[in-house]
C-alpha cells in the first residue's frame, strides 16, 4: 500500500511540474483540476491493482490445467475428449470403471453375474446412491441411460459401444439384466467409457450445461473460456474424498501454460502441451514430472490402394528407411515408445515387433530396386496441423530422401486433411496419431482410409470379438499384431507418452491414461 501511495505521489508531483513551472503566482483552475483528475485516475487504474492483500490459500483446492475447453459437459453426446477429462469419474459414474492400470472395476454396479454363453449380464447396483440433485439412483436410471445411448435418435459419439445390446430389463430396484445379441468380451470394459455413464432421466437434457451425476464432485459453475469449477458432493458415499474444490482452467497456449505453472497459478497440468519445456520443470524442486502411457499410436499411414504402395516391397522399404529413435527425438523430444505394430506396448498382449522394421537403409534401397525403383520415386506426404505430426513428417521426409524416395511435404488444415485424406482417401503418405484404446480393429475395415483389404485379418477380428477366454484372446491379438506387421500396412512409429506436470506435494494423480479422463477420487495434498 505504501508503495502505491508513493507511486501516486510521484505521479502527482510530476504532473504538477508543468503546471507550476514559470507560473507560481497565476492560478489556472481548470488545468489544475484536469491534472488532479489525471492523478486520481492514475491512482485508480494503475496503482490499485497492486494493493490487494495476499489471498489466503485453502489447501484442499486443486487447480488443473487443460489445453482445450470442452464445447459442453455432457459425455454422452459427441466425441470431444475434453468433456470426459472434466466430468468422467468426477461428476458422472458408469456401471464399471477402470483402475489406473486400465483394469475393469466395480462402480455403480457393486457386482455382476455373467451367464455361461456370455449373452446375459446381471448387475446388482450400489445401495443408497444419490444424484447431485437429491434424487435416488436405481435400476430405472440404468435402463434409461443405456436405452437412450443406443436409441436410433441418439447422438452418442460411441454408439458402437452399445451395438451388441439386445435389451435392458429392470429386475428390481437394485438389479438390472442386460441381454446381448452376441457375446462381447469387451462389454464390461465398454461400460467404463465416458459415453456409457449413468444419467438422471429428469436432468439428462440439461447435462450439457449443468451436468448432474452420482460422482464424488458436483458441478458448481462454468466461466466460459476460463474455467469449470466442481465442488465436493455432500451426498457421495464412496471412499472419502480429500479435495473440497477443483478448478479446471483452460490454457491453449503452451507458453502461457508454462508461466501459469511456474507462477503457481496451477497445481497440475495432467497433459502438458510442450515437451520442450519439461527440463525446466524437472530441474525445479517445486514440481514433479509424471511420464505415463496413452492409447495413442503415431503411424506413417500409407495408401495401400494406390501404386506404388500396393507393392509390399515398397511399403517394407519405407519401414526400413525410418529411424524411429530420430523421429521420437525430433517429434516429441524423446517422450515416446517405439512400436513395431499398431498396438500399445503397455498392454499385456503386446508383442515387440520393432525388429521386423528395424532401421536399415541398405535393405531399404535393395527392396526398392527389386520393386523396380532403383532411382527411387516422387511422392507426397500430407501433414495435419498437430505439432508432433509436422515435426515427425519433416524427419521422415529427410530419412526417405536418403533412400531415394522424394516425398514432398504438404501441410494441411484439419478440415482439408479430414476431407482429402480421411474421406476421399486421396493421399500417398500421412502422419497421424490413432488415439482410441484397442483400435487394432480399424485394419479390418476395408474402406478405412489406408485401404488395407485382407480377409485373413478380418476373420481374426471377428473371432476376437466372440472369444471370451482371456488366453485365447491374447493369442488372437498377438496373431493380429504380427499380421499387420509382416504385411507392412503402415510404418508404425511410436506410442505417445502422457506428460504431466504437478506440484510436488500433490499425490494420487494418475500416471497413465487408459481412457481420456482425470480421475480425482484419490487425489490429495501431501506434506
Amino acid at each position, binding site marked *: 500500500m505504501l508503495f502505491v501511495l508513493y507511486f501516486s505521489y510521484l505521479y502527482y508531483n510530476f504532473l504538477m511540474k508543468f503546471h507550476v513551472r514559470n507560473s507560481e503566482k497565476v492560478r489556472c483552475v481548470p488545468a489544475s483540476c484536469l491534472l488532479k483528475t*489525471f492523478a486520481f485516475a492514475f491512482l485508480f487504474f494503475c496503482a490499485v491493482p*497492486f494493493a490487494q492483500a495476499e489471498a489466503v490459500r485453502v489447501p484442499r483446492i486443486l487447480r488443473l490445467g487443460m489445453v482445450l475447453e470442452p464445447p459442453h459437459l455432457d459425455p454422452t453426446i459427441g466425441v470431444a475428449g475434453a468433456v470426459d477429462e472434466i466430468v468422467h469419474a468426477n461428476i458422472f459414474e458408469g456401471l464399471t470403471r477402470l483402475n489406473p492400470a486400465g483394469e475393469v472395476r466395480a462402480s455403480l454396479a457393486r457386482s455382476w453375474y455373467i451367464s455361461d454363453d456370455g449373452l446375459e449380464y446381471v448387475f446388482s447396483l450400489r445401495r443408497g446412491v444419490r444424484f447431485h440433485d437429491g434424487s435416488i439412483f436405481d435400476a430405472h436410471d440404468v435402463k434409461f441411460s443405456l436405452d437412450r445411448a443406443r436409441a436410433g435418435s441418439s447422438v452418442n459419439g460411441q454408439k458402437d459401444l452399445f451395438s451388441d445390446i439386445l435389451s435392458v430389463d429392470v429386475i428390481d430396484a437394485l438389479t438390472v439384466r442386460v441381454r446381448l445379441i452376441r457375446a462381447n468380451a469387451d462389454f464390461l470394459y465398454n461400460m467404463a467409457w465416458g459415453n456409457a455413464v449413468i444419467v438422471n432421466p429428469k436432468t439428462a437434457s440439461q447435462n450439457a*450445461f449443468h451436468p448432474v451425476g452420482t460422482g464424488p464432485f458436483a458441478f458448481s459453475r462454468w*466461466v466460459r473460456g476460463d474455467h469449470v469449477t466442481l465442488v465436493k458432493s455432500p451426498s457421495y458415499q464412496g471412499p472419502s474424498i480429500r479435495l473440497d474444490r477443483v478448478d479446471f482452467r483452460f490454457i491453449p497456449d503452451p507458453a502461457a501454460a508454462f508461466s501459469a505453472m511456474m507462477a503457481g497459478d496451477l497445481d497440475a497440468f495432467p497433459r502438458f502441451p510442450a515437451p520442450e519445456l519439461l527440463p525446466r520443470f524437472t530441474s525445479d524442486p517445486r514440481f514433479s514430472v509424471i511420464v505415463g502411457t496413452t492409447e495413442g499410436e503415431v503411424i506413417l499411414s500409407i495408401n495401400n490402394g494406390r501404386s506404388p504402395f500396393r507393392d509390399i516391397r515398397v511399403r517394407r522399404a519405407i519401414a526400413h528407411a525410418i529411424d524411429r529413435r530420430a523421429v521420437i527425438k525430433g517429434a516429441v523430444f524423446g517422450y515416446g515408445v517405439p512400436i513395431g505394430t499398431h498396438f500399445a506396448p503397455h498392454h499385456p498382449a503386446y508383442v515387440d515387433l520393432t525388429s521386423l522394421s528395424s532401421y536399415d537403409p541398405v535393405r531399404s534401397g535393395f527392396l526398392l530396386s527389386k520393386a523396380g525403383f532403383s532411382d527411387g520415386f516422387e511422392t507426397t506426404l500430407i501433414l495435419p496441423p498437430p505439432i508432433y505430426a509436422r515435426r515427425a513428417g519433416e524427419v521422415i521426409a529427410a530419412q526417405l530422401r536418403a533412400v531415394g524416395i522424394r516425398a514432398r511435404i504438404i501441410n494441411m488444415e484439419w478440415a482439408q486433411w*479430414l476431407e482429402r485424406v480421411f474421406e476421399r482417401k486421396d493421399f500417398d503418405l500421412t502422419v497421424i496419431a490413432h488415439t482410441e484404446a484397442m483400435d487394432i480393429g480399424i485394419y479390418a475395415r476395408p474402406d478405412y482410409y489406408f485401404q488395407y483389404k485382407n480377409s485373413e485379418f478380418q476373420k481374426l477380428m471377428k473371432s476376437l470379438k466372440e472369444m471370451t477366454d482371456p488366453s485365447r484372446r491374447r493369442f488372437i491379438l498377438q496373431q493380429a499384431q504380427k499380421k499387420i506387421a509382416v504385411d507392412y500396412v503402415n510404418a508404425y512409429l511410436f506410442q505417445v507418452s502422457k506428460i504431466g506436470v504437478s506440484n510436488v506435494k500433490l499425490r494420487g494423480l494418475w500416471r497413465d491414461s487408459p481412457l481420456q479422463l482425470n480421475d480425482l477420487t484419490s487425489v490429495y495434498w501431501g506434506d
Partner: protein
Amino acid sequence: MLHFFWWRFISLLFSLAFASIVIFFILDTLPGDPAAFMLGLNATEETIGALREKLHLDVSAVRRYFIWIGSLLTGDFGMSHTYQVPVWELIKERIFVSFPLAFYALLLSIFIGFPLGVLAAQCNQTFLGTVIIGTNQLGVSVPEFWFAILLVFIFSILLSWFPSGGFPGWSEGFLPVMKSLFLPAVALSFSRLSVLARVVRFSLQEAMSQDYFRTALAKGVPRSRAIWYHALRNAIIPLISILGLQFSSLLAGAIVIENVFFLPGLGRLVFQAVTQRDLIVVRGVVMLITFAVIVVTFLVELSCAALDPRLRKRIC
C-alpha cells in the same frame, strides 16, 4: 453540422454493408466442408447431409448471404455449432472481458502517454526529453507479445504480485478482475502510449512554433498557461484521431495478448472458432468488431468536426 452528420451516417451504413459482404464471402471460400469438419471422424454421410442442410450449405452463396444478413438485422446471430448455444450468448460473455480490457489499456495509455508527450515537448533537447523519446522508441519497436511475456516473468513468476493470466469472472468482484486485467492492459498500452506521446510531442511542438503562441507569450501569458490554453487545444485534434484508431486496434488486436494471458476475450473466441470451423461464430464476432470499429470512427469524425470548424466546412 446536421448535414455533416447525415453525410457521415450514410457513409457508415455503406461501410457496414460492404464489410458484411467481404466478411461473408471470404469465409465462404475457406477450403474443406465445414459440416464434415464439425462432425469429426466417425460421422455418417446422413448426419453430414443433415447438418449441411441446417447450415444452409445446400443453397447458393448469395442466398445464404441474405439469410444471414436478414437474421443479423433482427438481432439473431445464429447458433454456435461447437457450443450448441446462441452465438450472442458467447459474444455477450466475451464482451465483458474484451471491452473493459480495451478501455483499461486506452485509459492507461492516455494517462501516461499524454503527460509524457507534453513533458517531452517542454523539455525538448534536455536530458529528460531524450530519455522520454528513447523510451517511446523502445515502446514502438518492442513486440507486444514479447513485452507481455516479460511482464509475466517479472510480476507473476518472480514477484508473484499478479496472476499469470486467466479471468476470475465479474461475480468475483471488481478488484480481482482489475488485478487480472492489469498486466494485459499494461502490455497492450505500452506501444500505444508511446505512439500517443510521440504524436502529442510533435503536434505540441508544432503548435508552440506558431505565431499565435509567440504572441500569447509576448503579451505576458505564462508559458504553462500558454501551452495548456492555446497550444494544446490545437494540438489535440490529431490526438483524437489517433485515440479512435487505437481503440479499434485494441478491440481487434488483443488476440495475441489474450492468448499470452489466456483471457476469454473476443479475440480468442474468434481464434477458437476459426480452428473449429465454427463459421457462424467467426462471422458474428468479426461483424461485431467491424461494427464497433466503424462506429468509433464515426464518433471520432464527429468529435473532430466539433473541435475544428474547418473540417466541417471542407465536406459541406
